[in-house]
């Protein structure tokens, strides 16, 4: 009987260990998935570049023919965005607090889709306001390099 108990205990431990190892020590948060991929890192780098005002880095992550939809406007090349609205975006981002509340990246061959949601907090004349910002980004592998080919912000 004792042997049976020991066997059961050992088997339970093996099963628990197997489950634990197969899921890693930290269970994946379904709100943040696919972020280890190369394509996801491009999106993360781009976001950081905009937040820190790094024009050169931001530009290097965009495809030349990128299409950007933002607040009812469309920009149809990296040149148009970088020489136009990007600086205003950088200035805006430095004036607010942005907390990413979810981010998923799915890679399918040479294309990846990134979707994310952020909580934007802005303080203006002592008044704090909050809104949710949504982002869709298409990243495409062009000549072996992942580049952003489409952005839709709303």
């Amino acid at each position: 009987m004792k042997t049976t108990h020991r066997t059961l205990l050992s088997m339970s431990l093996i099963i628990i260990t197997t489950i634990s190892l197969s899921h890693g020590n930290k269970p994946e948060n379904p709100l943040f998935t696919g972020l280890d991929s190369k394509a996801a890192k491009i999106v993360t780098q781009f976001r950081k570049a905009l937040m820190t005002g790094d024009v050169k880095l931001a530009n290097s992550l965009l495809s030349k023919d990128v299409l950007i939809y933002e607040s009812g406007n469309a920009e149809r090349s990296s040149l148009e965005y970088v020489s136009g609205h990007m600086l205003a975006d950088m200035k805006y981002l430095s004036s607010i607090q942005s907390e990413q509340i979810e981010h998923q990246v799915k890679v399918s061959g040479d294309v990846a889709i990134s979707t994310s949601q952020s909580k934007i907090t802005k303080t203006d004349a002592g008044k704090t306001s909050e809104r949710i910002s949504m982002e869709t980004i298409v990243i495409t592998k062009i000549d072996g390099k992942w580049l952003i080919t489409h952005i839709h912000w709303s």
Partner: protein
Amino acid sequence: MSNKIITLTLIFISTLLFANEDDQQIKSIINEIKFGWENGDGTPFRKNFLDFEGARYIESGGQNEGLSDLVEHHVEPEKNALKFLSLDFSKIEIHYENDFAWAVANIRVKGEVRKTGKVFDKSGFQTFLFRKIEGDWKVVHTHSSSKDFKTKKHEH
């Protein structure tokens, strides 16, 4: 030499034909989606959207998670909430990358809220992302954003 030219011409024509077939299928799906929104009918969505865990459909600051959420909590309720809804997609551009496609379009949305009588008229942009599954294009993600028509001022 002439054989090579004929072969190349045939390849070129068949490429155009296939591209045209893909364009037609994607535009037809977009048209069916328009019908679905305007009539509060979930059928075109269930037919043309890929139902998968983690699917996100974004609309101006909000999102539906999964196909059932989109149909049951957004598309179908609009039938009762709105007296009418008209949705127009124009300037549709489609880009392909093997079995992946993304289509962008200008949108114009007009409608009337049944409860308050408020009439709205908005314009903006739509992004559709597709994957080809067993020969058919399926919508895997949508993002639409709009603001009151004729308002050209940029927010920041």
